[in-house]
């Protein structure tokens, strides 16, 4: 389904990343540079961006490295774009410090840069549209505590968390938010964390080893989609029952399936579609000289095994079902 649409971006990302793909570029094509062409989360960003572009009658160009750990590749993409001077750039920076320079260069070249998803260590950008990841991490922490309370009567015991990539600002803030929330529960102890390098198989092995090392473990938090896939698979493989809670981020098909089965207890879902959609609107506006708000929080929602099939979540859990209108009429209901 995404086949033809994403072919160019994927080929660009996987072959060399440093060359400029030969695409029709005119003054109405806005490049969208995401973190990893290989996670469904980022496909949702592209979907939102594409829908916005359709409405505006402009084109987008889908770019990005294959994996979020490929910092140099994304810097290369930004350098090439800057020398090409597109009307604006929508960027989800893989690293807050490493991408600061390229963002400043693009801005200095007169290209408005809309940052989406993750912050960057510079103020030389047009606007930031992202999840407040610290707050989102807090939601995950509270969701884990709530689950522990439900399954064992009190929010107490040992928890551990899986980190996808200690180099990304959004993930670091998320982990900090998680720890901040957990620190509000004096009886919950964070016993360990593992860095699984955004590799699902490693996340799975690390989770198995965590379950083994801490036989009394009560909760695991997986800080992105690939970590959630791996941790969920490990839970399913070990037949871990209700006595260990699992809270993960985002919503791959596998994660949502695990949520339905009760393997994953809660998913903290962001709104990547909205980031792409708003990113393109803002980029278009910026290029017209419109002054933009400094930052916009796209919010998070917590879906659990009971609420997963509520219609409000369908568009968030599966971008294919997302309606063209960006604003959910029921968004107030979703804030719990």
């Amino acid at each position: 389904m995404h086949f033809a649409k994403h072919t160019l971006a994927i080929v660009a990302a996987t072959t060399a990343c440093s060359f400029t793909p030969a695409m029709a570029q005119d003054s109405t094509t806005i490049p969208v540079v995401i973190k990893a062409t290989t996670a469904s989360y980022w496909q949702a960003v592209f979907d939102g961006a594409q829908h916005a572009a359709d409405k505006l009658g402009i084109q987008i160009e889908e770019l990005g490295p294959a994996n979020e750990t490929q910092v140099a590749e994304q810097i290369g993409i930004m350098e090439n774009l800057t020398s090409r001077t597109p009307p604006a750039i929508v960027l989800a920076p893989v690293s807050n410090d490493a991408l600061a320079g390229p963002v400043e260069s693009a801005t200095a070249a007169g290209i408005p840069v809309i940052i989406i998803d993750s912050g960057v260590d510079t103020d030389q950008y047009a606007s930031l549209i992202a999840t407040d990841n610290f707050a989102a991490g807090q939601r995950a922490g509270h969701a884990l505590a709530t689950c522990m309370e439900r399954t064992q009567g009190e929010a107490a015991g040992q928890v551990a968390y899986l980190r996808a990539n200690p180099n990304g600002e959004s993930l670091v803030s998320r982990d900090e938010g998680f720890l901040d929330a957990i620190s509000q529960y004096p009886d919950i102890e964070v016993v360990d964390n593992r860095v699984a390098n955004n590799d699902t198989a490693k996340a799975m092995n690390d989770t198995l080893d965590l379950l083994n090392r801490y036989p009394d473990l009560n909760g695991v938090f997986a800080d992105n989609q690939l970590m959630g896939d791996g941790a969920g698979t490990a839970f399913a493989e070990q037949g871990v029952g209700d006595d260990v809670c699992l809270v993960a981020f985002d919503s791959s098909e596998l994660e949502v399936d695990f949520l339905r089965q009760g393997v994953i207890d809660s998913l903290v879902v962001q709104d990547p579609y909205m980031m792409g959609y708003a990113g393109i609107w803002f980029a278009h506006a910026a290029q017209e000289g419109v002054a933009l708000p400094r930052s916009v929080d796209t919010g998070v929602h917590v879906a659990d095994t009971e609420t997963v099939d509520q219609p409000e979540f369908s568009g968030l859990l599966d971008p294919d079902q997302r309606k063209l209108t960006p604003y959910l009429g029921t968004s107030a209901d979703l804030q719990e």
Partner: protein
Amino acid sequence: MATHDSDLSTGRAMSQSASTWLSLNRRHLPVETLVLALTLSLWVVMAFSTPNFLTANNIINILRQVSIDSIIAFGVLFPILIRGIDLSVGSVVALSGVVCATLLTMGMPIPIAIGLTLLLGIAIGSLNAFSVHRLGIPAFIITLAGLQAYRGGAFLVSGGTSVFGLPQELASFARAEWLGIPSLFWTMLVIGLILHFILSRTRTGRYMVAMGSNYESARRAGINIKRIVFFAYIISSVTACIAGILLMSRMSIGSPTAAVAYELNAIAAAVVGGASLFGGRGSVLGTFIGALLFATIANSANLLGIDSFWQMVATGVLIAVVVYVDNLHKRRQSGLK
């Protein structure tokens, strides 16, 4: 300062006596034994360091973790034996997982989907062998090209995201245990035994070693070089495809990002297990022990809560040390001659 010096000299004396001992017992002490000793001592240390290591559950975890890595490493051993290399296996693992998953989600029966995926492995292996043997492209280059191309293929086939919705039987297979041993490990054992038999008991196996040791004399002796080259690269790609199907079954998704850099782990396992990158030397058993050592290190780091980054450093240092000690003792041995 004095302590430092004496430490150094003790260390030197120890390493000298160790290597003398090694070279005296050359026939009985190949590098496999050294690595096996290292792995076993790590197991003993771990057994005393944490009560969670020597538990049935953890052993089963290690067996699961080592199985897929070993299968890839067994395959890679074959091109290495004939003085080649196969850098494409990690990408072939991802591509085969994605292709098989896609065929399955299209409703194809499991045996046919697996059969077609293995055919893909034969095709990739043949292409590598053809490029090396007929076109004269260095194995390093053609399989490096494959590393890029097959990964790209995996993204194209999957549309960039994981292929989800596999039949339940597949996930159940990877989770099954027979006689208390994971099915993945049994699969690895069967493949390992077949490859070990081929290598040690068949003419093809002996020819491979001969060809890796001395290409010219092997050719003059009338060995069918073409057949051997095709055989080695097809084994490598097909085992990578089997590993890809197993990994897909274990993760219950076909993931285009799976197995990044696994070719390097596989080569490292083969080399630490006694294979020479200059061909003509290496064994299936040694390769398994190499893979087991790496799996034990990863597992130990997790159980002891050692920083994931130190685990990478330790693995790297270990590869260097083992190969150095092996070289040292080979050099001494040739000096003795």
